[in-house]
């Protein structure tokens, strides 16, 4: 019998400390899917994960794994009986046990031979064969996280939970390990839920991403859509860079702004307001020496292959634009750009004018 959803989180509310950390949260995960809960710190994502693992009681709602109810108000299947694996930001390896014993920690009911075989297989798969007799403190951060993953996967959990698994690793390593983990999970058809505040981790690993704020999911979508079609200002703000440009709607498929008329599919036909804010991502603004828009470079940030320019229009409006690295301008230079928007992301205007969101992720 195959089930449609391996994990079902239905309208759960949990209290953490004084306030409600999670309020009315719902989402479902299909077998073999990789799900990311993405949000700023304090949005309740970790509490949600703790609730799924069984460390957090529910005030409302229900959590089911493989159709079996594991949490409702007044009932909590203890974590040790849920058959979920967990990986942590601080790796949480048992410091007094060798690597091999760490990986074997969840296999105590297995026969000795089988256990040794499982451990050996996993260590091999994770490129850790040589390290089985080492202690955790003798390993690098990346190796520790591999061991943590092997340990979590060893008992063949129904569900793998990951709490900011790559946050303690340096940039280069986290990207490589992210891809590695993605492939491994897909290869074994493991269903996983990860929480992170880092959108790039979420993009690498998640089939689907839930953007969380104040204990709830604002948008549930693929990473691509979350970036290109944010449904709320918060999501637009939190994911990627960009600016809002004020404009007036003209017809069904165009908005008139100071940058000219912008054509494109309107993502929100229901929005009827005449005056709107249009989201302009850096990749919507292309360098073009014949482009219709002239702007002054007011700031530049070198990113290696690209340079992120902050451009100021004569009116004072700012734009962000990503240029290939060899288009090297100095601050104060005038450049010409054109827009390339095929999909219009518009929001109702806010009282306080949001000018730019240059909060680039570190």
């Amino acid at each position: 019998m195959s089930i449609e959803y391996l994990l079902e989180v239905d309208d759960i509310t949990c209290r953490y400390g004084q306030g409600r950390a999670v309020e009315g949260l719902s989402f479902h995960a299909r077998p073999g899917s990789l799900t990311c809960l993405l949000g700023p710190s304090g949005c309740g994502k970790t509490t949600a994960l703790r609730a799924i693992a069984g460390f957090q009681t529910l005030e409302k709602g229900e959590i089911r794994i493989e159709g079996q109810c594991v949490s409702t108000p007044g009932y909590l299947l203890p974590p040790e009986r849920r058959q979920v694996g967990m990986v942590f930001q601080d790796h949480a390896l048992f410091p007094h046990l060798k690597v091999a014993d760490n990986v074997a920690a969840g296999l105590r009911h297995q026969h000795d031979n089988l256990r040794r075989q499982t451990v050996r297989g996993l260590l091999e798969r994770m490129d850790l064969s040589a390290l089985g007799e080492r202690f955790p403190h003798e390993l690098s951060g990346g190796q520790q996280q591999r061991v943590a993953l092997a340990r979590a996967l060893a008992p063949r959990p129904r569900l793998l939970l990951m709490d900011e698994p790559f946050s303690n690793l340096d940039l280069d390593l986290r990207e490589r390990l992210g891809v590695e983990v993605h492939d491994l999970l897909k290869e074994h058809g493991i269903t996983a839920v990860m929480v992170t505040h880092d959108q790039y981790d979420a993009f690498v690993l998640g089939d689907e991403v839930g953007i969380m704020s104040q204990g709830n999911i604002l948008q549930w979508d693929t990473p691509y859509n979350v970036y290109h079609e944010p449904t709320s200002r918060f999501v637009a703000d939190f994911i990627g860079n960009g600016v809002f440009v004020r404009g007036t709607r003209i017809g069904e498929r165009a908005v008139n702004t100071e940058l000219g008329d912008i054509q494109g599919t309107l993502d929100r036909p229901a929005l009827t307001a005449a005056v709107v804010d249009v989201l302009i991502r850096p990749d919507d603004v292309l360098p073009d020496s014949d482009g219709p828009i002239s702007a002054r470079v007011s700031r530049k940030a070198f990113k290696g292959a690209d340079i992120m320019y902050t451009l100021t229009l004569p009116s004072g409006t700012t734009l962000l634009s990503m240029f290939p690295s060899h288009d090297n301008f100095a601050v104060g230079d005038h450049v010409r750009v054109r827009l390339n928007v095929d999909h219009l992301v518009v929001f109702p205007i806010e009282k306080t004018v949001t000018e730019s969101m240059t909060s680039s992720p570190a």
Partner: protein
Amino acid sequence: MGAIAVESSSKMRRLSHSMDRWTLSSILLSVLVALPVLTVISLAFGSTSDIWQHLLSTSLPHYLRNTLCLMLGVGVAVCLLGISTAWLVTMCRFPGRKLFEWLLLLPLAMPAYVIAYAYTDFLEYAGVVQGGLRGLFGWQSARDYWFPEVRSLGGAIVFMGFVLYPYVYLLTRAAFLEQSVSMIEASRVLGRGAWSTFFSVSLPSARPAIAVGLALALMETLNDFGTVDYFAVETLTVGIFDVWLGMGNLAGGAQIAVVMMCFVIALITLEGISRRHQRYYQPASSRLKKLPTYPLVGYKRMAAMGACVVPVLFGFFVPVLVLGELAWVYFDESWTPAFRTYVLNSCLLSSAAALIALSVAIVIAYARRLQSGRVLKIATRIASLGYALPGAVLAVGIIVPFAAFDNALDAWMRAYLGISTGLLLSGTVTAVVFAYVVRFLAIALGQVEASLEKISPSMDMAARTLGYRASETFVRFHAPLMRGGLFTALMIVFVDCMKELPATLILRPFNFDTLATHVYEFASDEMLGEAALGSLTIVTVGLLPVLLLTRMIGNTREQGLRRAKRPELAESVT
């Protein structure tokens, strides 16, 4: 379908119950430990007789005055000794500073009653000092010269000051070490000298720490029975013994215990408030920079060394030498089979109490880790109140409910089964061990909590999701990681039990002696020589935790400095 529903619902109930097992045991244990405190408080309000009136008109003012004088005197003494030495070893440079840093802790190993016995022998009329003076000056009798009376309120203040100042020293020293270097530098730059900086910057910022140390020292003062009894200083503790055991008036003793509770509450409040302030007064910034120290030369250097030598010498080495000499001379009289029984008794009771206290502490601390809630927090707070309870008060709080239980059980058994159970709890070592556990649980709890806190909560979650129950997680993963902390807790409680006198004295079974009560009884019978070996044994055992402490305090700041210098760790912070 219906059957499944029924089955799963019964399963649900069972599981939610098992979740609460830790919480439940924790609350139950806390209530049990709080029993003496609750008893004393209820006695204060429950009594209908006019004993209050009687007490007030007779002995209570006398007990009160003595207690207040003693606490005031000891308070001044420990502050003078503790603060000055703490400042010298942290802020000045002079020969032997490193050595004094830990030597100054040694008097902590000396129970007040032991130092009192040692000095009485040393300083009394027939003792070495007066005898020497008489020989030197040719005096014939006590009428020829004046010598301060050792067995007096003043004597008690001086001797208790010498053994209790390390509480103030230890906490003040830590506060001085953690004070902001920039604050001192700012003061110096603004033109203040060393003295002025001390009084206007260092001392005020260390005030909360000093208050905590003072509160702890005064709790010990209030708890003391051996010294004040021997010196005939009639404090409230002596009052409890006199009224209760001397005159057979338990209710009167309980009333005095209630009065003492007021002192205890005042001290706990002082301690609590000061601990809260400590956080604000000791900013974390730049505390890892090396402290600027004043190099001392000439007479200042001699004065500094003198100030550090005096407490160590008179608080530890002189009494140890006196006791050692006595023990040597009286060895054959002291080293008897009875003595070995006392040692065994002490060890057995202390070990049992230490193990029980540790187990209770683990249950309470672990329950709080598993489930954070207001109820558990309050339970923990109540459970650790016992440390402030003077032994005599504790004894009152234990004997009342225990005796009531024994009598009720005995009556019931006799009525229904025709057998007498006698005194099951109150007349046996159960009461003594229980008293130890109540009084020293806070120490074990503090240790266990501190060691548990060092273990990341994700470690628990990792173990649980790997299929280990809460208890298995503790045994398999926590216990090995906190081995050091658990052992320290065991040892400190064990040693404190060995030294405990007033509660043991009241609650012990008839004709049952521990090392402490043996020393007390021989000293009371003016047989100081025979008591010396026991005293020395207690001091030796008492040295264990002190040595551990010296190892720990020696390198807190140095460790911090070293850690800050390690780049890979500094990086991970930024």
